[in-house]
Each structure stands twice: as structure tokens, then as C-alpha cells.
């Protein structure tokens, strides 16, 4: 092999190694595991796609899938709306811009488990801030996490709080690519601030908005830490996401079934990633 080929290959080798070791191998391993009936206290048995057939018949699986999709839709729409508002504010030229940008990022900088724990404490029945505030106004304590609607709202709130800054930063980058002269020109032509936003800023930002939506949707579909800490999937399993559902099987030791849930989740995320890449290509053309 001559030097011309050898050198680039040697540069690529570590990358290939890391992708294989940390991405390819675990994914294929999980898929392989999902084809087995693997429960402690029993012999391991190859069952092909039996675990997947079990999933299709599993009402709990459909319920958690439905919950995950609803959670992703609601929280991502709210995050996009608030993220856009935050980005527009941060894009305004003001003396406080630097400080505001820093402050806006704080929720994103807090480790998600700690953020989730904070929200769990806020919604606690006996000494949570939410109930203490209500009591001050004279309304009786509410068991926030005790109803499926209340628990769902608490989870969405925590997720929106945490990831709005992330969306805002992506959108801010997009906002800065909108050329000032076009906006100025429109202003001279008599377009008001809303017209300028809807007719110029928004269309020009479309690709980056798509990126933000896809990033966030993939992330929201895999939500685990937030739910694990705040509700643990309760009350009565009504707020369990697919990840929480799959984790349960690893905990109780049904590795094949848990792997099958993981594989399904992976396929969903992969499909979304492929869509994202396709959209990225459209953009560059």
C-alpha cells in the first residue's frame, strides 16, 4: 500500500474504531439480544421475533407509545413557541444582551436529573413550593402528581423549562443569518413588524427551525430521566414513556423483551434522523 492511501486510512481508523465500538456494536448487540428469551433463573432460548410479537399484543406498550408521542408533540410545540420568543428577545440589540443570553442558558446548563428533582420538590404535596404558594392565596393543597393530567402537565412544564434555552440558541443562530438589509428594505416599503417576521424572518429560518424541531422531537421521544425522577411513571403507570417502559424490563431481568423495546425506540429515532438528513440535503441544494 502506498503512502497516499495509508495516511488517510490511518487517520480514519480511530473514528471507525470508535463508531464500531460505541455505536455499531451496542446497537447490533441489542438487536441480537432482542431475539432471545433471556430471563434470569431460566435457560437462554432463541425465539426469533417472539418478543416483538409479544410487544404488538402488549396493551401497556401501546399506551406508553401513545403517551410518548403526545408528550413529544405537546412539549416540542411549546418549546418551539417559547424558544422563538426568547430568541427574538435575545436578538434585540441592547446593553443587557450578553447578560440575558447567559441567564437564559441556565436551565440548559443544570444537569437534567437535578432539574427534574427540583421540579419534583416544587410539586410535592406536603412541602412543595407550588402548594405553599396556593395556600398563601387561600386555595387548598393540590395533589399535582396524583392525577394523570396533573402529572403530565408537570412533566411538560419541566421539559419546556429545561429545553427552551436550547431551542432559543439554535433559533438565535438562525435569526442572525437573516440579512439586516432585506429587513430594512421591507421596513422602508412599509411592512410592519409582524409582516416582516412572517414574510421574511420565518421563511428564511425554515431550515433551521426544522433542525430544531427534529432534534427536539428525537430527544423528547427518548425522554427518561425527567419521568424517572418526577413521577416514576405514576400514577398507575399513566406517565411512563417508552424508555421508562423498556428500562423496567432490564430492571426485572427480562433482557430480551427490554431490548425489543429499545430496538423499536432506536428505529423511531433513526427514521427521524434520516428525515433530518434528507431535509438538510434539500437545504443545501
Amino acid at each position, binding site marked *: 500500500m502506498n503512502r497516499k492511501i495509508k495516511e488517510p486510512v490511518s487517520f480514519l481508523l480511530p473514528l471507525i474504531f470508535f463508531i464500531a465500538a460505541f455505536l455499531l456494536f451496542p446497537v447490533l448487540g441489542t438487536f441480537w439480544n432482542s431475539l432471545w428469551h433471556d*430471563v*434470569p*433463573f*431460566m435457560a437462554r432460548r432463541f425465539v426469533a421475533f417472539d418478543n416483538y410479537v*409479544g410487544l404488538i399484543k402488549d396493551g*401497556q406498550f401501546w399506551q406508553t407509545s401513545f403517551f410518548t408521542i403526545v408528550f413529544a408533540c405537546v412539549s416540542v410545540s411549546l418549546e418551539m413557541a417559547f424558544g422563538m420568543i426568547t430568541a427574538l428577545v435575545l436578538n434585540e440589540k441592547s446593553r443587557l444582551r450578553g447578560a440575558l443570553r447567559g441567564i437564559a442558558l441556565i436551565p440548559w446548563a443544570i444537569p437534567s436529573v437535578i432539574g427534574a428533582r427540583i421540579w419534583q420538590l416544587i410539586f*410535592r*404535596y*406536603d412541602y412543595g413550593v407550588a402548594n405553599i404558594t396556593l395556600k398563601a392565596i387561600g386555595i387548598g*393543597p393540590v*395533589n399535582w*402528581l*396524583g*392525577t*394523570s393530567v396533573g402529572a403530565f402537565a408537570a412533566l411538560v412544564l419541566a421539559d419546556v423549562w429545561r429545553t427552551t434555552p436550547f431551542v432559543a440558541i439554535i433559533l438565535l443562530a438562525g435569526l442572525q443569518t437573516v440579512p439586516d438589509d432585506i429587513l430594512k428594505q421591507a421596513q422602508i416599503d412599509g411592512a410592519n413588524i409582524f409582516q416582516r417576521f412572517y414574510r421574511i424572518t420565518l421563511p428564511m429560518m425554515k431550515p433551521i427551525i426544522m433542525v430544531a424541531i427534529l432534534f427536539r422531537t428525537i430527544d423528547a421521544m427518548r425522554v427518561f430521566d425527567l419521568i424517572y425522577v418526577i*413521577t*416514576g*411513571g*405514576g*400514577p*398507575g*403507570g*399513566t406517565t411512563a414513556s417508552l424508555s421508562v417502559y423498556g428500562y*423496567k424490563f432490564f*430492571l*426485572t*431481568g*427480562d433482557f430480551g423483551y427490554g431490548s425489543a423495546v429499545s430496538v423499536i425506540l432506536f428505529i423511531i429515532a433513526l427514521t427521524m434522523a434520516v428525515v433530518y438528513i434528507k431535509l438538510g440535503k434539500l437545504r443545501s441544494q
Partner: protein
Amino acid sequence: MLSSRRLLISITIFSFLFFGCKPRTPQLTFAVGGASNEVEYWEKIVSEFTDSTRIDVVLLRQPTDTDQRRQGLVIPLRSRQQDPDIFLMDVIWVGQFAASDWLEPLDSVVATGDVNLADFFESIVNQVDTYHDSLYALPVYNDCGLLYFRKDLLEKYGLKPPVTWQQLIRSADIVQENERITNPHFFGFVWQGAQYEGLVCNFLEFAASNNGGIIDSAGGIIVYTPENIRAADLMHDLIHKHKISPPNTYTEMKEEETRLAFENGNALYERNWPYAWALHNKEGSRVKGKVAAALLPRGHNGQHAAALGGWHIGISKFSDNKTEAMTFLKFVLSYATQKKLALNLGWNPGRSDLYEDADVRRKMPHLDVLKNSFDHAVARPTSPYYTQISEILQQNQNAALSGKSSSDEALARAQREINEILQRYNE
């Protein structure tokens, strides 16, 4: 050239790290976990054993968390490792381990008379340690659900400790109504209803004390029965109808939450494990000296019931030191060692004869109630799939408590899901 040699050296060192072989130990390996003071005390016991028998014992320190302790034993046993030779098991693992054929039968120790089964609680040995008519483990530490109550408050209102659930509800009602005037946080009865293993224990007690239960005579799991539905209704009503249990019972209440509510003077009755006794009576507790314990109430024509917990000792089938392990097992279960564990760690002895010991009784005045409770102990199923069954029970019972499903719906669903799982695993 130099760099490749360096690489070779690093690889060699790394492979030593990963594949470096552990020298085979001729000693006994004893796996035990728990709080740090407990593990330290075990170290002392082990050294006493070595002094008297000249058998070397390596103490394999395990974490505090029960699930991690289980994992730490399942991995070596599954791969048929010779170590650990002997270990402590939570009551619910004994059936799983015995079903997997990982435990050495202990029938020979009993047959030779080295261990006398009469020294132990019959109901516990039968429900936990016996699998297919063979003995696989013995109790080192017994645990069961108790009812704690405030003697001062019952006295204040001229009430007697409750024997039935009806009496508990009535007296809690009276005390709660009056105490609320000065303490708006006061509740009549706190117990564990959050979605976790503790809920299954609480449910078992409510069920068994109302003639229900989840194990049928053939050892199968039967959840959907009229008695169990009544028990689930009772649990639901304590929160939503009688309102003597706090609304966050089914979202937040685990052992520590109930203990703190009781210790802060915010409850009349508390269902908890024996560990709470010492803490309730510790310096700084607001209820110090005002607490007493009793059997958990029973239904109208039911029996008292207490969910069984605790740690049992067993020997690995793959152990290479079985004779030494038997000697150690006898040492741990001896009157002297059990007494030391009770006096120094506050462990409720596995041996029943220690409940009559004057020194132990002085230190643990609630032993009489405990001993009585052990006679009413209800074990959780010893199925190898208990962990999965428990998950299903937790979720559906919690749904019934929250009012999201009726008790009937929730238990019917639990039964269906348990049948499905057992079918999938047994096919």
C-alpha cells in the same frame, strides 16, 4: 519504532488489568451488604469465627441497595463461580435462587441435629426457606409490618389501640378531627402507597387481614378475588372516603416519608417496619416515649397479618468449601452470634428463642409484639418471576389507589398481565 514498542507495553499492561487472573482462594468468601456499621460489625463476627475455628473468611462487601446486592450475587451464581461460598439473601430471592438450583440444600445440617428447626419460626421457615420440600436457607434477621401508634393521643381521647380496621378508622376519625384544630397537617393513618415494592407489602397485609391473599394452595398467583377487591377498596377509601390518610399516599409515601410524618407528630397511626422503632424513640424525635407498637388490624372476620421481610443465609451450590461454609452458617445462626447481632445492630433475631432472652428484651421492648407478628407473617410469592409479578402489582394497585381505575378493574388487569407473563416465561 519507539512508539510501537510503547504501544505494545501499554497493551500488555491493559490486558493484565482486564484478564489478570485472580489467584484461587482456599478461604471462605462471605458476601454481605447493608449500612456501613452493619458491614463493619460483620467483619468483627468474621474475625471471631476465624479465631475460634482457624478457617479464613474473606468478607465480600456489598452495597446498601437491595437490587444491587441481588445483582452482585446473580452474576457469579449464573456463571457458576466458586465464590462467594455463602451469602445473605432477601426473603424474596430465596425462592428464585432455589428454583435456579443455585443453593446447597441444608437438610443434612438439620438431620445431624447441628441446627434445630424448633429454634426458628415455623411459619417463616415454611414460607421462605423451603422449596420443593427441601430446606435451602435459614433466617438471620426477621422483619415484618407493624402498626405504630401514639399512646398519648389515644389516652387523651379515651380510646383503645385498634384491633380491627373499623376500629382504626373510627378512632383515627375522632383524633384527626380534634387534632386538626391545632395542627392542620395532622392525619389519622400513614402507610406506604407509592408505586414501589413497599406497596405490595402493604397490599398483602390489607388483603390477608381480610381473608384475601395472592398465593393459592397450589402455589399459583391469584389476585382477582372478591376479598382482594375489598382490601383494595379499603385502601382507596382510607384516602378518598374516610380521608384519614393523606392524598399523597399513592404518589410519595414510602417508608421514610411515613416515618417522618409520624415523627413530626403529624399522624396517629403508622404502618412501618421494625427499624422505625429505634428512630421514633431517638433523642430529638417529637414522639419519643409516646409510641407503642401493635399487630396490624384485621378485618371483621379476618386474621392479623404482617408482610414478611428479612435476610436469610444460604450456601452456594458451586462453593468449593461447603464443609467450612456449613461451619460458618452454624456459627452465624448460633444463639451467641444472634444475640450479638440483636444487641449491637438492633437486628430482630432469626431464632425465636432469643425473643425470651432477658438482655435482648431489655434492649428491644417491642419484641413481644414482633414475635406475635411473625406468627401472622405473610410471605410474598416465592416465584422465580417475583420481580416481574411485583412490577405488575405495584402499577395496578397504584392505579386503584389513585382512583384512576376501580379496584375491580385494576385487579382484573393485574391478573391478566400476570397470567400473560407466566405463560410467556413458562412456555
